[in-house]
């Protein structure tokens, strides 16, 4: 039995088709990465899977229970860290965690020690009595994760869990996730815009405009792109783009995907006719996979939260 099973899932908000029919399975114990540009429909899919939104079409099950007809059952098997904050700003950090522990029926005697452990992991133990409203954005995020990791569910959904966190905190959270994966049979469903996090996943699905455009292991995906990536900066990008019909403009410069980068660059210098000011060659990475499937780099899709079209238009 799959931990998550999604068949022809659709969701529209009025005119907007957020999810346009996706199919995939996540195996028990798997860490499944969900990638895609802003607005691709990742969070919407998660909302349906955790019973917060109703699908407009298709079906889905989590831990073997249908997300429409067996909602209470589904909720007993899942845990979440949402993308948007879901803390009570007017309660203290400690009370937020206590509330969670009660709602999730944690054994009473385990609540106090666990609370201390998770707060220490995210470095908020000394602020446990402060109201959440006095926290910085990153501190709220840390508290949110601490709360999500107080107990372990069968299926753990993490929607961009570490966005905006400092490197040490991210590292210690990932350390925990690794141990969790090793010691427990837990399925982790993760969305992220960070490549290093995507690399940790057993399999990755890339979503764009409400559809799955790729689904495989990180290694297989990289192999499927197969080409080297040449990035150039020129003194006249517009002209260069005209002469290179296969090239894509990104925040890093003009990108070309070619079989043999080292052999291609000298030819490019000789034949382009537009002065090249900078050049780099890289072997396929997940970023390239992302780029080739969505037309954007992961970084591009992250630095423009909410307004990708606007910024993309500015750049053209």
């Amino acid at each position: 039995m799959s931990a998550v099973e999604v068949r022809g899932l659709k969701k529209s908000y009025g005119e907007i088709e957020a999810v346009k029919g996706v199919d995939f399975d996540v195996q028990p114990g798997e860490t499944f990465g969900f990638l895609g540009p802003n607005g691709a429909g990742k969070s919407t899919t998660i909302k349906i899977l955790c019973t917060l939104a109703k699908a407009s079409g298709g079906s889905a099950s989590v831990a073997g229970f249908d997300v429409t007809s067996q909602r209470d059952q589904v909720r007993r098997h899942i845990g979440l860290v949402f993308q948007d904050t879901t803390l009570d700003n007017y309660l203290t950090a400690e009370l937020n965690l206590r509330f969670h522990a009660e709602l999730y029926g944690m054994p009473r005697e385990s609540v106090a020690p666990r609370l201390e452990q998770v707060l220490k992991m995210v470095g908020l133990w000394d602020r446990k009595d402060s109201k959440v409203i006095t926290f910085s954005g990153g501190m709220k995020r840390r508290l949110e994760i601490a709360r999500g990791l107080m107990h372990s569910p069968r299926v753990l959904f993490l929607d961009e869990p570490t966005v905006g966190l400092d490197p040490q905190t991210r590292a210690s959270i990932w350390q925990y996730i690794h141990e969790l994966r090793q010691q427990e049979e837990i399925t982790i469903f993760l969305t992220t815009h960070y490549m290093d996090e995507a690399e940790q996943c057993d399999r990755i699905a890339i979503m764009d405009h409400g559809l799955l455009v790729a689904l495989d292991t990180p290694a297989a995906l990289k192999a499927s792109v197969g080409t080297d990536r040449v990035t150039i900066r020129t003194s006249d990008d517009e002209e260069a783009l005209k002469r290179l019909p296969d090239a894509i403009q990104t925040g890093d410069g003009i990108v070309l995907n070619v079989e043999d980068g080292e052999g291609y660059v000298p030819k490019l210098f000789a034949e382009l006719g537009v002065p090249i000011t900078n050049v780099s060659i890289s072997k396929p990475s997940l970023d390239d996979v992302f780029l080739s499937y969505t037309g954007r780099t992961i970084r591009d899709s992250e630095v423009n939260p909410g307004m990708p079209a606007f910024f993309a238009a500015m750049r053209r």
Partner: protein
Amino acid sequence: MTTLPVASVVVPKRTFALDARAIKIVVQRDLIRTFQDRTRFISQLIQPVLFLFVLGSGLSSLTGSATGPIDLRTFMFPGVLATSTLFTAMFSAMSIVWDREFGFLREMLVAPVRRSSIILGKALGGATIATAQAVIVMVLGAFVHVPYTFGLVLTLLAEVFLLSFTLTAFGLAIVARITQVQTVMGLMQMLLLPLSFLSGALYPLSNLPTWLSIVVRFNPLTYAVHPVRTAVFAHLTLPDTVRQRLNPPLTWFGWDVPTWMQLGLVAVMGIGLMLVAIRQFQRVE
């Protein structure tokens, strides 16, 4: 930062105890939030004070002996008690729209408990807060000659608790689908004053124009105000004519609706509205 020992995977059992814990913590949170926010708690007491001591005292000079041997403010007290319960209960229900706007509602809605437990917790929380507030209003009542006995205090508290539960459930059923605080503010303004003005909270049900006497009988609040007033009047010694005028029986086509039935009606409405609210939240996005 230290490393954290891994929590083992646990699937919470589907037990009544777990739902009871959820209900309790939802109530507790509402209480903590309310008593932390003293401004709100106090501002909700201003209204009954205004009604009783300002409006009541002012109108007394106008009505003079129209209320016979009893103080107009004693007459108004049951209505003021019910109205302040209405406001507090509805504001309590409204808090769920804030919870939604600030995201916290999601934390509750994905928990491994029945949605009905969350909603029940909210309704009980609202009822508890409104009843606590009513205790203070009842203290004010002592200054306007409400003839308290131990029995009357208990009766009033029980009636207020029942009423506030129903009203919070009513509020929850209304706000379930509302996503913006803005919208709910407007809606409440539209609802609250008409509900209290059309309930007989501030005037007796005798000698009303026909249209008004009909509307009043359709207002659920009427069936809560009347038992409260009847309880207070039972402790007053009054000539029958005055009693008839100030606290006439609540009738349907000339038939006296007994108090137990009025309270029963409020309870049935409370349960009905709870079911509506639960259904609404089960479909909620």
